[in-house]
C-alpha cells in the first residue's frame, strides 16, 4: 500500500467513523448507540493501524498482514451477515394465522441459501488467500472439468427442488380454500378500507360499480338485489373476525390497485378494480392487527391503513350485533337494531355461512 492509498483509506474511514458517532449520538435505541460506537471504534483502530504501519514501513519492518485484506474482508462480510441475521431485533411479527407453513418454508430457504452463501464466501476467501499472485508463480491450465460441473449441477438441482417442493405444496394450500370458510368482503378505495359481511340470508348481494355512491353506498351494492339489503357494511371502521374460524376474504377495489396485507397473517393479495380476488386464512389468536396497503395506489398509499380485530366468539357476536345493514344505512328512519340482532342471531343458528357460488 502506498501513501496515497493510505491517505485515501484514512479519510474514508474517518468519514465513516464520524458518521457512526453521529448515529450513536442521535440514537434513541441502545442497539444503535452501541453499533454506532462500535463502528466509530473500528474506524479509530483502523486509522491507528494505518499510521503504525506507515511508521513500520519507514523503519523497514515488514507489514503485519501482507496485503491479505480482501479475503479477510470477505470472511468478515459473511460472518457479519450471519451475525446480523441471528442477532438483529428485526424479524417478522408474531404470527396470528394458520400460515406458519410459510414461515417454515422461509426458514428452510434461509438455511439452504445461508449455507450456500457462506460456503461460496469461504471458498472465495480461501482462493484469494492461497492463490494471490506471487513472483514466479503461474496459474494452472485447466479449461473445464465436466465431472465437477455435473456434480455441482446435480447438487444445485437437488437444493432447488428441496426448496421448490414444499413451496408448491404450501402454495396449493394457499389457493385452495376449505369448504367451511366464512366469506367477508374487503373493498379498497383511495385511501381507506371498507368491509362487508353477509347478513341474515348468509350471502353477499351482487355489486355494480355504477351503483357506488360516496355517501350511502360506498361499496356499490346493487340496490335491486335483495341479498344485498341485509348485508352488513362496515365503513372506514375496524373489521372484526372470530378467532379460529377460516375466513375467505373477497377483495374488490372501486378505483385503483390496492393490496390487502396484514403482516401477522403472512398473507397478501391485490385488489383489482373490475374483478374480485381472494385468499383465505384462519386467525389463530385474538388481537388488533393493522392492515397495510401493499400496492402503490397514489399519494395516500402510505396512510391507507385499516384494522382487523380478532375477537373471541362472545366479543365478536357483541360487535356484530351493533353493526348496521345496508338497508338500514340507506334509510336511517328504519330502526336498525332489531334486524341486525336478527342477522347476528341467524348467523349463530346456521353456523358457518355457505355462499351460493
Amino acid at each position: 500500500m502506498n501513501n496515497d492509498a493510505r491517505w485515501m483509506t484514512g479519510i474514508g474511514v474517518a468519514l465513516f467513523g464520524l458518521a457512526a458517532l453521529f448515529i450513536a449520538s442521535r440514537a434513541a435505541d441502545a442497539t444503535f448507540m452501541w453499533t454506532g460506537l462500535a463502528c466509530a471504534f473500528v474506524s479509530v483502530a483502523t486509522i491507528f493501524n494505518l499510521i503504525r504501519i506507515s511508521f513500520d514501513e519507514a523503519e523497514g519492518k515488514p507489514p503485519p498482514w501482507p496485503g491479505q485484506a480482501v479475503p479477510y474482508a470477505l470472511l468478515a462480510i459473511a460472518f457479519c451477515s450471519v451475525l446480523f441475521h441471528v442477532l438483529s431485533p428485526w424479524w417478522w411479527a408474531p404470527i396470528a394465522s394458520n400460515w406458519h407453513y410459510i414461515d417454515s418454508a422461509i426458514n428452510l430457504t434461509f438455511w439452504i441459501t445461508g449455507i450456500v452463501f457462506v460456503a461460496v464466501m469461504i471458498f472465495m476467501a480461501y482462493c484469494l488467500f492461497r492463490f494471490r499472485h506471487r513472483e514466479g508463480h503461474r496459474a494452472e491450465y485447466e479449461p473445464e472439468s465436466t465431472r465437477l460441473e455435473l456434480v455441482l449441477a446435480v447438487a444445485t438441482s437437488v437444493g432447488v427442488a428441496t426448496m421448490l417442493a414444499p413451496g408448491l405444496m404450501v402454495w396449493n394450500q394457499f389457493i385452495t380454500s376449505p369448504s367451511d370458510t366464512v366469506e367477508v368482503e374487503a373493498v379498497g378505495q383511495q385511501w381507506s378500507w371498507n368491509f362487508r359481511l353477509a347478513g341474515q340470508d348468509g350471502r353477499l348481494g351482487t355489486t355494480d360499480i355504477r351503483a357506488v355512491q360516496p355517501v350511502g353506498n360506498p361499496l356499490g351494492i346493487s340496490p335491486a338485489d335483495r341479498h344485498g339489503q341485509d348485508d352488513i357494511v362496515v365503513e372506514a371502521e375496524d373489521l372484526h373476525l372470530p378467532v379460529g374460524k377460516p375466513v375467505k376474504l373477497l377483495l374488490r377495489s372501486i378505483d385503483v390497485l390496492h393490496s390487502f396485507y396484514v403482516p401477522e397473517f403472512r398473507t397478501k393479495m391485490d385488489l383489482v378494480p373490475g374483478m374480485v380476488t381472494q385468499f383465505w386464512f384462519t386467525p389463530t389468536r385474538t388481537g388488533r392487527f393493522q392492515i397495510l396497503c401493499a400496492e402503490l395506489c397514489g399519494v395516500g398509499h402510505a396512510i391507507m391503513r385499516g384494522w382487523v380485530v380478532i375477537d373471541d366468539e362472545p366479543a365478536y357476536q357483541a360487535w356484530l350485533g351493533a353493526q348496521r345493514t345496508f338497508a338500514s344505512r340507506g334509510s336511517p328512519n328504519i330502526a336498525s337494531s332489531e334486524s341486525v340482532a336478527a342477522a347476528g342471531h341467524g348467523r349463530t343458528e346456521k353456523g358457518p355461512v355457505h355462499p351460493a357460488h
Partner: protein
Amino acid sequence: MGEATAKPLDGRGHAEVPEDDLYHATSWWTKYVFSQDAKVIALQYSATALAAGFVALVLSWLMRLQLGFPDSLSIIDQNQYYQVITMHGMIMVVYLLTALLLGGFGNYLIPLMVGARDMAFPYLNMLSYWTYLLAVLVLMSSFFVPGGPTGAGWTLYPPQAILSGTPGRDAGIVLMLVSLIIFIIGFTMGGLNYVVTVLQGRARGMTMMRLPLTVWGIFTASVMALLAFPALFVGAVMLLFDRLLGTSFFMPAIVEMGQPLGYSGGSPILFQHMFWFFGHPEVYIVALPAFGIVSDLISTHARRNIFGYRMMVWAIVIIGFLSFAVWAHHMYVSGMHPYFGFFFATTTLIIAVPTALKVYNWVLTLWRGDIHLTVPMLFALGFIVTFVNGGLTGLFLGNAVLDVPLSDTMFVVAHFHMVMGVAPILVIFGAIYHWYPKATGRMMHEAMGKFHFWVTFIGSYAIFFPLHYLGLMGVPRRYHAMGEMSDIPLSTGELNALVSVAAFIVGFAQLVFVFNLIWSLRHGAAAGGNPWRATTLEWQTPETPPGHGNWGRELPVVYRWAYDYSVPGAMQDFLPQNQPPSAQATRSAAP
C-alpha cells in the same frame, strides 16, 4: 443508411471491407459529435447514461433523506417522494443500465472484440444514439412541466398511473410513456447493429466458440432486448391511448374520489402481463452483459482461463431462453389465475441452476489461479458477493408462496437492488477501470480506485443487506413515511437512518470516481497497448486508443479461443487470440 454501409456482397461479409471503404469523418462535427464511429458513439452513450445515472443518484439521496430522517432532514413531500422513486427507478433500469451496458459497452467492445472495423451499420448506430439522447431529454423535461414527472412507480401500473390521485398525471406520465417509446425505437436501431455485427462482422477465424464471454453476453442480451422491448412498447402505446384518447384497454369502470369515470371493462392485469413480459427479460438484459464482462475480468486478472467456458456459453443461452417463461413470478399476488403460480415458480427456480453454475465457474476460475488484486478484479469479486446474495434472495421471491408475505415489501427492494442494481453497477465500474486504458491510453489512479471500490462495495452492502429485514418485518415498499405501524418497533427508524448514512457515503464516493475519470485523462500513467496482458483482440490493436477503423491496414486473423492464459510451455502467461500457433512454438522453444 448512407453510402458508408455499401459493402461488397461476395459472400464474405463485413469483416473484409478494406480500410479505405470505411466512412471517413471530414469535419470536427462529424468526427466528434455526429460521429459514425462505434467507439465515439460508445463514449457518447456512456457519458449520457452516466449523467442520467447521476440524476438518479441525487434522487436516491432525496429519497433516503426522507426515509432516514423523516422529521428533521426531509426536503420532499409525499407527492415529490413518489415522483422521485419513479424517476430513480426508471432512469436506473432503462436509461442507465440498459443504455450503458448495451449502448456503451456493446458499441465499444463488440467491433473490437470480434475483430471488425466498425458496426455493421454505422449511420443507423449514430441515429440510435441521438434517438436515445432525445428519449433522455424528453424524460428529463418532465421535471420542468406543470405537475412534474409522474409518480406512478417505475412499473407504471394503471389505473393509478393515469388517474389524478397520482402526481404527474397531466404531463409527467405522457412524457414518460413517449420517452419510453422513443427509447425503444432507438434501442431497436442499436440492437440490430449489435446482433448483425456479431453474426457477420467477425474476423477470420473468430468462430462463435472463440468469442469472449463479454460478446456472448451482450449478443444474447441484445437478441432478448429486441424481442422483449416490444412488450413495453405495446403497453406504453396502449396506456397512452387510455390516457389521451379515453380508450379502455387497461381501465375498468372506476369511481375515483366519488366521481365515475368514462372507462369500462379494461384489465389492469393485462398491463402487468405486458410490462413483465418485458420486465423480466430486462433483468437478464442487464445481467447477461454483466455476466460476460465479469467472466473476462476474472479470467484476465486471475491469469487463468475461465473455468468451463462451454458451460458458461450454454448457461447464457439457456438463461436467455428461459427468461421469457418466468415473467409472471412478479404477479403471484396480482390476482392472476392462481394455477399459474405452479408453473412460474417452477420455471423461476429452474433458471437458478444455470445461474448457479455460472457462479461456481467464476469462483472455480480463482482456484489455482495467479490472482492479481487490481481494481477491476476487486470490483469483479464485489460483483460475485452481491450477486450471490441477491440471487439467493431471489429463491425466496420466485417460490410462489414465499412471495406472498414478502412481495411488495422492502425485501423486494433489497433483493433487486442487490442483484440488478449493485451487482451490475460494480461490473460497470470494474469494466470502466479495465477498459479505460484502452479508450484513453492512460491508467486510472489505483489508490482512488481502491478507495472507490471499498466504500462502494461495503457501503452498498450495508445499505441493502439490512433492508431485507425491514421487509421480513412487513414494511411495505413505496411508503414515504412508515407512520404508526402496530407490529414494527421504533428501532427500524434508526435502521433506516443508518442505511441513509451509508447511502450518502456511497454517493459521495462516486464523486471520487468521477474525479478519477477526469483526472486520469491527463495525469494517469501511460498504459501502453495491453496493460493487463490480456488475450482478447481489443488489446491487440496497433494504436491505443484504437484509431478509426480499429486495425490499421490489415484485419486481425484469429487462431485460438479467448482464454489462453498460463498455457503450459508458452513463454508468456497469455497468448493473444491473433497469435499464430507457429509463433507460439518458436517462442516457447526460445529460452
